[in-house]
């Protein structure tokens, strides 16, 4: 049997002031079930705190959950900070109450996937698996 390759580490973050963490905790839980090592930041983290944690924990991906409507501002800030810190290769995905009209803009910013309410765990895991496999470092 081949040695089990550990799956990469993922940070689940709640930027801004929104305290609705049911979705974030649920996604953290199902990603753990799928074998990922997951770091959850807790609620009400600033973009700086999230990027610090991501760099410190050397994560391959960051999942951001936001239900308050502040996603356009805060996702952008986090992606900018990642680039400033030389961590622009970290995969960023998101979820929450995000109107369809905002999806093209978020994609342009570099958000690799957005999982809106109702997305199944299976879809989330398959998408993350695929996106991370595509980015695997040699």
């Amino acid at each position, binding site marked *: 049997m081949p040695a089990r390759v550990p799956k990469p580490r993922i940070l689940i973050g709640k930027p*801004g*002031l*929104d*305290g*609705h*963490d*049911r979705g974030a*905790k*649920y996604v953290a*839980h*199902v990603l753990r079930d799928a074998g990922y090592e997951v770091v*959850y930041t*807790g*609620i*009400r983290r*600033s973009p700086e705190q999230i990027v610090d944690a991501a760099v410190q924990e050397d994560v391959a991906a960051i999942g951001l959950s936001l239900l*308050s*409507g*502040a*996603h*356009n*501002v*805060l996702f952008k*800030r986090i992606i900018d900070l990642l680039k400033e810190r030389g961590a622009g290769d970290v995969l960023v995905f998101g979820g929450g*109450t*995000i*109107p*369809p*009209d905002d999806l093209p803009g978020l994609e342009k910013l570099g958000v690799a996937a957005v999982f*809106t*309410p*109702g997305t*199944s*765990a*299976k879809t989330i895991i398959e998408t993350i698996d695929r996106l991370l496999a595509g980015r695997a470092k040699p």
Partner: protein
Amino acid sequence: MAESSDALRAAQEKWEREQVAPGLEKSPELRERFETASGRTVDRLYLPEGDVGDAAARAYQEKIGFPGQYPFTRGVQPTMHRGRLWTMRQYAGFASAEESNRRYKFLLGQGTTGLSVAFDLPTQIGYDSDDPMAAGEVGKVGVAIDTLADMEALFEGIPLDKVSVSMTINATAAVLLAMHIAVAEKQGVAPAKLEGTIQNDILKEYIARGTYIFPPRPSLRLVSDLFAHCTAHVPNWNMISISGYHIREAGASAGQEIGVTLADAICYIETALAAGLKVDDFAPRLAFFFAAHSDLFEEAAKFRAARRLYARIMRERFKAKNPRSWMLRFHTQTGGVTLTAQQPDNNVVRVAIQALAAVLGGTQSLHTNSKDEALALPTEEAVRVALRTQQVIAHESGVANTVDPLAGSYYVEKLTDELEAEAEACIKAIDALGGVVPAIERGHIQREIEASAYRFGQSIERGERVIVGVNKFQEGQDPPMELLRIDEGVAARQVERLRHVRATRDNARVKNALEAVARGAKGSENLMPLILEAVRAYASVGEICNTLRGVFGEHQESFS
């Protein structure tokens, strides 16, 4: 045989004589005669018919009883919705005070009967609109309020002695209530004339909703200062709305929702008693707030169970004597978490079922969610349909024509008993940990809710639970929908206004007022009058809260 049913008839006659008749004298029912769509007369109350044995009659009276009487299983008023329909209260607020004021006037024009103010997150967490922590959040989930100037604009042209106002505000409840009182003063309305509700339920913020500022203990002191102030000066104000809604939204089951909520209530009551208040002086102004989800009978039974359990807690545990202290009065909101982004029109049907559960369960007021809220804040059009849903239930369905129509259903009575038992077990477990505060500090309640949410999610993943349009009956892409957008310019205009207020107010008066707040926080005097003086001086929400942060510190979320 005749003798036994006579016992129940006699109790009914007594109830009619002692409760219904005096009530009708004060205010009659909405109609002289209620009838079904086909013209049959509908009675106020239906009771077991025929051969009711003595034992069964006693059991009926102890567990179910008459509306307006202990244990209030059938409702808190003798005539319930025949006397007065529930208040149709739509939660609203976004962007600036002026835009929210326009939405309130629209809602009042559409037949809504009370206002419910949504504040943005910086206001809820005590940051001014120009604080770096407020970036991206100003005006998003509610209206931005920095100073009294914003609150004046929010209620411009809305007479506060005529319109009851509910405010969803918790960590900063003392500041916003002070602003409300100050605006009323400017309208010439005395505090004693104000009617409304302030959420002021900080415990569920640690458990589920997340808008806390200070650690639990100083937060509870603010709650009890507000209680004491309202008891003395704002006597018609519901000074807390103890909320299961957000606990349910976070994933709790129906039984956990009422169990944790009543455990929170116990903590507030103990805090107020410890501060020297007397239970019958404040308990009549404790209000509750629950969710209504789609399992119609379980939800209706939940409200009945909550009323019965609370009545017993108030009478037996707290020895309250005033029957009003035993009554659990509640607001309901349909379940935000049940709304789907897929096929959003289906949400109108979900909301209708949930609203029906709330009405059948005897709610005092109701907010119906709009179909587009899994995607954004609701548009005016979506809000109108949500309000019309309540109006159809009220005026066309006939369910409000008799009190507690589900009573006596084998199924609903059994559900009521089971939910009461589950909630009571939940309270016992929390009591065993030393109460809600230690249970929160240890993460016990948060863990239970998260486990419940995970189980629920997994049952959807496995297809055991069907969500129409999500894991069954799916369609392709939904057609695009008109959604409400909050203009990003709101934040800049709000910051501009705040700077103008800071530049034109009497800053020496502000400084003195804030120093008095800091001194008060270090000591033990009631903070409400000090905060009131600060808001009258146009000190901002952020300035007052930063002053308190300096004394109380900030709460840090604990992880398991």
